[in-house]
């Protein structure tokens, strides 16, 4: 799986599906190369495990503009509690050291955007930005059961009829920094209250850059550790175990070391001047599992036999209607 249920026991991190990241995507807007689409999906199997966004948490898309594995820009989405069946989002854009902090800082760029709980997508426009949040069809595709059955793939897409809660942002490329080569990851936070009386404090919940990293490479409690740390700590903490996994698939030590250096830190690289897909950003239709299977298994397994869904939209918010 991409990042669905990436805590031990195939559960959501901290048992909270609302902030359980399933996937992130980043791609050029079709027909407007000066804009990009950023998508952060959460809540696997929605609405089975959770029916709303977490109002005691924070959803973030972190942008590394200089290759130091630290965020220089962050888009932060905070949701109100559900009242009378409605929930609202505020989106902030933080820069500099504020982008690295675990707090709800930054300039408000979108206010009081309604969450969509039904089939109709309520899109909010604010200046150069577009925003959507709500339940949609899960765009991820994978023969999960075939994978569990020791790679005996049957071409059955486990996610074909599943939903997620999607957060979609259309942003001008200039808001992603002057350097077109950026790195992106998502980080969700859970509030721990306001102990010091100034603002809510937060703790790390889930984290994801590329698909199928934490879920595929890490065992047991290592999954929780991976979620808790920041990308800048990835190599120190996890490079040796990643190399071990890669060597078990037949890579030499040098090859495994080189690939681990690509996979870590877990950041999705994206050149916003390029429309190429994964590993440059990630489009909804990119078959990231096939790419990952080939890479991780050293070519022993090349496909799971399933392809992109047919319900993606060719316009904002791009995610298909919920099932």
């Amino acid at each position: 799986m991409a990042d669905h249920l990436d805590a031990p026991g195939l559960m959501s991190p901290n048992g909270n599906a609302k902030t359980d990241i399933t996937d992130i995507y980043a791609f050029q807007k079709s027909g407007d190369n000066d804009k990009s689409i950023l998508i952060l999906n959460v809540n696997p199997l929605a609405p089975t495990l959770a029916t709303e966004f977490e109002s005691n948490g924070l959803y973030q898309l972190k942008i590394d503009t200089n290759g130091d594995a630290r965020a220089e820009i962050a888009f932060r989405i905070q949701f109100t509690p559900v009242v009378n069946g409605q929930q609202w989002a505020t989106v902030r854009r933080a820069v500099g050291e504020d982008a690295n902090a675990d707090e709800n800082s930054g300039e408000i760029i979108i206010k009081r955007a309604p969450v969509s709980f039904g089939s109709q997508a309520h899109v909010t426009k604010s200046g150069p930005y577009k925003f959507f949040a709500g339940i949609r069809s899960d765009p991820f595709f994978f023969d999960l059961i075939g994978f569990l059955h020791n790679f005996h793939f049957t071409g059955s897409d486990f996610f074909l009829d599943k939903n997620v809660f999607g957060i979609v942002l259309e942003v001008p490329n200039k808001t992603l920094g002057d350097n077109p080569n950026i790195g992106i990851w998502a980080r969700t936070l859970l509030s721990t209250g306001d102990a010091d009386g100034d603002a809510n404090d937060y703790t790390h919940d889930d984290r994801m850059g590329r698909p199928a990293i934490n879920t595929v490479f890490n065992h047991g409690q290592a999954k929780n550790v991976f979620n808790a740390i920041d990308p800048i700590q990835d190599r120190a903490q996890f490079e040796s175990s990643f190399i071990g996994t890669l060597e078990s698939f037949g890579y030499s030590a040098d090859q495994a070391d080189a690939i681990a250096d690509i996979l870590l830190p877990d950041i999705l690289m994206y050149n916003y001047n390029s429309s190429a897909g994964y590993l440059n950003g990630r489009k909804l239709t990119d078959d990231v599992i096939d790419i990952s299977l080939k890479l991780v298994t050293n070519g022993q397994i090349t496909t799971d036999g399933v392809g992109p869904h047919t319900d993606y939209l060719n316009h904002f918010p791009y995610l298909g209607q919920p099932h």
Partner: protein
Amino acid sequence: MNKLNRRKFLALAGAGSAAVTTGGAITLANLGQTKGNTLTFRAVAGLPSRLLPAYASYVIEGHVNLETRSGVVTQTLYAGEPGEMSRIAFPGQSRIVRITDAQDLGGTFRIVGVIDDRSQLQNGESSTFDILLDPAQHIGRTSFFGSELLLHLEG
């Protein structure tokens, strides 16, 4: 919009019969004879069983009467690896096996059965069930999609 709540999810998972044959290493838990000729056992395997971390636990458990050579065994795929197993079963991945033969081979047990409800069998999945248990070695063997699966017996 189809709403699938947790209760329905679990009901779907547990209701039907389910099949699983695996091809990796299984852990057999809690094997022992109770009440005379009734053999009770529980087996757990992490899946996938090769190289990558296990996401799920494949559980084989049941009761077999060694005298009448009959009984029922269930096969269930639970979310979470062994040791971190949840109680959430994957929909459509459970099977009920009707035991058709059981033999005490002098310390090891061969149990044979059939999955009567074949509607949920996957491509390449056999409707027959055959497992060899060796309590002394804490191991067992079965086949899983054409590959041998090594079982480890606990308890």
